């Protein structure tokens, strides 16, 4: 790239879409993915896009993918994306876009709004007055195994058996303990999800993923998202608290996060 081509790329701006809000919504005042360009709304009928200008030198074709490989950059931008949507949710319904949607000109944003208008309006109606809460169930397997051991009879005394038989018995006992732990966790996950869902307008189960560091192993066995009416949020929190109280002696606990914009309750893919 020549020097002059590079400088013109740096000056050029794209339009980063954070999400969809109701037409007439006030854009939030927090810093966006580019702090020099506050978020604004681009409206069309009943829905508006929450957009912020971004330099194409950072977010343009090729550049965006390069920057995704820089964890420091990505963390900053991802947090800004979230902050804008959280602030927008304070004043009305929001449909979050996934990170990294950039248009080259405003006309394309308007075309998208026109093309997707019905879906987006329905999406806003679906989440209006509700916010997303996340509940993770985490287990310390060692503590759970200990609890299971303490609540069942001890295995037969191995001294009365041969060495080989003792080994097999031990292996069998270990395998049963693992199966017991898995079964116990499954039952807890099902009950917890059912109780939490009862407080929610909608619920979604995501795959449990590793969040543990090597130092402090904690396995996620439940990763639920709940779309909750504001008036019922205390109910959901109370339910999570009760679950925690009931299962804490088994090495199980529950982490509640929120309120989130309703990431888990928007159509994942729409239109073109």
């Amino acid at each position, binding site marked *: 790239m020549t020097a002059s081509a590079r400088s013109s790329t740096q000056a050029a701006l794209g339009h980063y879409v954070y999400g969809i809000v109701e037409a007439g919504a006030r854009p939030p005042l927090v810093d966006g993915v580019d702090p020099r360009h506050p978020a604004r709304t681009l409206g069309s009928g009943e829905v508006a896009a929450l957009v912020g200008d971004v330099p194409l030198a950072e977010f343009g074709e090729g550049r965006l993918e390069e920057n995704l490989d820089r964890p420091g950059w990505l963390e900053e931008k991802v947090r800004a994306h979230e902050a804008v949507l959280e602030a927008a949710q304070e004043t009305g319904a929001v*449909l979050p876009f996934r990170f990294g949607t950039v248009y080259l000109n405003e006309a394309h944003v308007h075309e998208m709004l026109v093309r997707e208008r019905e879906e987006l309006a329905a999406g806003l109606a679906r989440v209006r007055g509700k916010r997303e809460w996340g509940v993770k169930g985490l287990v310390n397997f060692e503590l759970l195994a200990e609890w299971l051991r303490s609540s069942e009879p001890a295995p037969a005394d191995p001294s009365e058996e041969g060495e080989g038989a003792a080994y097999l018995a031990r292996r069998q006992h270990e395998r049963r303990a693992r199966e017991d732990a898995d079964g116990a966790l499954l039952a807890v996950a099902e009950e917890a999800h059912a109780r939490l869902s009862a407080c929610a307008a909608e619920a979604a189960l995501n795959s449990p993923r590793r969040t543990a560091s090597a130092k402090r192993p904690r396995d996620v066995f439940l990763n639920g998202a709940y779309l909750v009416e504001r008036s019922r949020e205390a109910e959901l929190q109370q339910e999570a608290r009760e679950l925690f109280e009931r299962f804490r002696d088994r090495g199980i606990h529950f982490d509640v*996060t929120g309120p989130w914009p309703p990431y888990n309750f928007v159509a994942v893919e729409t239109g073109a």
Partner: protein
Amino acid sequence: MTQLDYRQGAGGTVPAPAPANLADILERVLDKGIVIAGDIKINLLDIELLTIKLRLLVASVDKAREMGIDWWEHDPALTSGRGRDGHALEERLERLESAVGVDAAEHDRERS
């Protein structure tokens, strides 16, 4: 965003708001939300890789920062030669995981 943490406190039952961790944010911002193609394309496979990469990073980043290590800014596996196929992805993941000390047993348990 806050996290209600029931593990803290003498009574253990009073929710104490704390900043939600980066992993929770990434899980939503990179994986969820409306996907409408803009004018700039992002490879979906890369999003998957990023989420895993950042998750691993999150697990080790605090410690690394304490020690003043910023290896991820310089490690070629993290900053260049983006894999486009499944094989390259696997290879990169293995390198990443060994770099942050995720042991094989944990990996196996997650997959099983």
